């Protein structure tokens, strides 16, 4: 895992990116290209976006290195298995089979379809949740293609079939973050080197968080004031280097505690 700032047209320092880890394999280094990098055959690689050049190395065989340009801007493009935060804005279908229309703020496909049967324990029509307009749901995109148009959503854990944190969110507050930050918050621990802002906050104050890949987060904590402080801390932390981030987070939380 390494990263450096790169601009469109810059040469990609392939040697430093790949390192020596992969040289011992028989077939030579395998590089996978992610978003923001253009491959001009036979072997020219050109960044076409400004951002941080990020490499992810897979140590288990088959060994490979993924390189991509990480940017924090742009609009969210739905992808299967992404978790999103949406708002119920309507309902259609009959009693047997009804669907919710869910607005996905910040998304290129602004409306998703959520079946009322796509919840945990929703086998019977009587145990299905009854969501009113304006309800916020934490959902997973189960199917999407450009041709399909509207992403299909599900509100249960795919592996266990249980709730797993999905479904209606009650209380707390929603806030906007950049989709880059949302991605970073959802990345496995340490993927971006060192503790994240959530870890720093977790040491100071108990709170609940749900992160939608569409650039929305949901926070709930002990009081209004603390929730506002946590949201501020997360939003501000995006543009701070790690050392300053922890300091700033501590200051914000202390400020909220004082009064």
């Amino acid at each position, binding site marked *: 895992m390494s990263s450096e700032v790169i601009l469109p047209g810059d040469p990609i320092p392939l040697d430093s990116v790949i390192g020596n880890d992969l040289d011992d394999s028989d077939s030579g280094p395998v590089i996978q290209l992610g978003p923001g990098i253009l491959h001009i055959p036979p072997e020219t690689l050109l960044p076409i976006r400004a951002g941080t050049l990020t490499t992810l190395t897979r140590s288990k065989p088959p060994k490979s290195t993924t390189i991509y340009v990480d940017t924090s801007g742009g609009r969210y493009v739905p992808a299967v298995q992404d978790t999103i935060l949406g*708002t119920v804005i309507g309902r259609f279908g009959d009693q047997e089979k009804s669907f919710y229309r869910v607005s996905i703020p910040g998304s290129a496909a602004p409306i998703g379809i959520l079946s009322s049967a796509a919840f945990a324990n929703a086998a019977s029509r009587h145990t299905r949740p009854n969501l009113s307009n304006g309800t916020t749901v934490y959902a997973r995109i189960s199917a999407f293609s450009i041709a399909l148009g509207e992403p299909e959503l599900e509100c249960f854990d795919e592996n266990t079939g249980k709730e797993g944190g999905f479904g209606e969110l009650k*209380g707390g507050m929603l806030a906007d973050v950049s989709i880059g930050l949302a991605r970073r918050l959802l990345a496995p621990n340490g993927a971006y080197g060192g503790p994240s802002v959530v870890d720093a906050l977790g040491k100071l104050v108990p709170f609940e968080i749900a992160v939608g890949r569409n650039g929305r987060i949901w926070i709930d904590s002990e009081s209004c004031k603390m929730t506002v402080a946590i949201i501020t801390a997360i939003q501000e932390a995006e543009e701070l280097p790690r050392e300053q981030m922890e300091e700033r987070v501590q200051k914000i939380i202390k400020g909220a505690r004082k009064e």
Partner: protein
Amino acid sequence: MPRDLTPSTIENTFVLKALTERIRLDSRSFNQLRDLDISFSSTEYGVVDVKLGRTRVIARISAEITQPYTDRPYDGLFIISTEISPMAAPTFEAGRKSEDELVISRIIEKSIRRSGALDTESLCIISGEKCWAVRADVHFLDHDGGLMDAACIAVSAGLLHFRRPDITIEGVGSRREVIVHPITERVPVPLAVLHVPVCVTFSFFDVRKASSAISGRTRKDEAKDVDEDDVEEEEEEEEDDSSVAVLVDATLQEELLRHGYMSVTANTNREICQIQKGGDMPVDVGVLLSCSEAAIMVAEKVTKLINKRLKEDEARRNVGNLLVEARAENDR
């Protein structure tokens, strides 16, 4: 297929609850403006970039010579174009005016053009034949609430910053000729700006609705919360003696959730140029008066900032004081 942003119940409940505790989401006080930044183009006259928090607006002033309207031979033309593109927010559609957009362009029109900020008579060159047509193009780049406030500041500052080319009229009677001197040849002339209108939008929240918004959902456990909230709020009300929270310079989230708003345009002469009230919430006379007073205070502050930035820009352009020496109105 862009849609209007629909605020969720969570946001609605939380914002109202926070307001009863006198907390805003960005930790501002109720009457505090966001960070305002005004910068002028280094190459062109009349191009202003205004940042109000995360809202960003660019205004460009331009002028050309045309024929005046036949019924107003002594008046020049002044047009403000405020088209909102999807660049500002995906909810705006290109080429189709939404209701919000109409309100915004209407308020800016009233604030600046109809309040007579620009003396259109000074734009007359030859009565009934030639006049200046001044045009203000407003581009909305980023939308985080307060579009009209930012646009009004941008146009006002742009008019102050703009310089039109100097002209001379030669000949007599029907053989008069207008000579336009390019700005590289003669020092360009500022516009006759009579006052600097600044628009301030106040957002009203009926904090009594905080309880009704929660009770809108008919659940038993929540009904219990409502009772507790009601008790708290009654105590609050006795302290504050008002059930209305008045916020200055709302963010987009606050704009979507507010129950009513009022845009007041004022200037440093303590004149109110226009008032527009929207939303379905009645407002007391007292609130209206205090808003007007607050708008004048903001106008003074913003005008001060505009003048400061203008002075800085002037100092940067006017190296060696040559522009002052070469001004057209000096004796030759």
